[in-house]
């Protein structure tokens, strides 16, 4: 399941909804991305941020998240999965994104959650703008995020 929303999400409630009444799940992994109060602005310096604004491409966002989630479910035996991403203005400490995966086994749940985050970071059409005392800056994409994708190349995939 995927959702794009302005409102906050409740991590505990989302996990409970996913697992409710099920006894075939052995492992549940959640990843929550949150707004930090400082950010590296295209270099070594850490700048304080007072607010982050998340812009996205309505329509394509949902399409990409659905595609990424389907791909994860094809690669790992998941009993359930969830992606929730917020948009709009967010303060430091607030939630940005939630990914939850449930599987019979822990390695599948962990790997699928990491895969979802790596693909979301590089494919889902969201853009962050950070506002600080000296104005706003669009966040630069990070090479490390592109690098993180490489481990999911089909040829490298470890047997589960």
């Amino acid at each position, binding site marked *: 399941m995927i959702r794009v929303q302005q409102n906050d999400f409740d991590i505990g409630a989302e996990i409970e909804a996913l697992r409710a009444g099920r006894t075939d799940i052995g492992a549940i992994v959640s990843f929550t991305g949150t707004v930090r109060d400082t950010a590296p602005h295209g270099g070594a310096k850490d700048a304080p941020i007072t607010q982050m604004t998340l812009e996205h*491409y309505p329509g394509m966002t949902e399409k990409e998240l659905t595609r990424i989630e389907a791909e994860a479910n094809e690669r790992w035996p998941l009993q359930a999965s969830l992606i929730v991403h917020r948009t709009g203005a967010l303060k430091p400490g607030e939630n940005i994104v939630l990914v939850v995966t449930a599987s019979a086994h822990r390695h599948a749940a962990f790997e699928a959650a990491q895969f979802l985050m790596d693909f979301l*970071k590089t494919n889902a059409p969201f*853009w962050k703008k950070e506002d600080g005392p000296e104005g706003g800056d669009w966040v*630069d*994409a990070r090479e490390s995020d592109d690098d993180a994708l490489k481990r999911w190349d089909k040829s490298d995939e470890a047997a589960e």
Partner: protein
Amino acid sequence: MSVKLLYFAWVREKAGKAEEVVELPENIKTVSDLMAWLRSRGPEYVAAFEQSDVIRTAVDQTHVAHDTAIADAREIAFFPPVTGG
């Protein structure tokens, strides 16, 4: 051909608009052609598409490369590398 163009993040800010509908000249075949044509339309487009190699494109909501043909496209979006998550 009439096509809807969408701009996001700093591409939007530099172009000074979030979307527009344009009539594409016949000779515009690829995403690269389209960016070159847009740059010819005014300084705001020059600013927006200056770093064209950095700009990402989606045709009908699917990521595409710059040499992709845009025939039959209804919606073409230009944006910086994504930074969600």
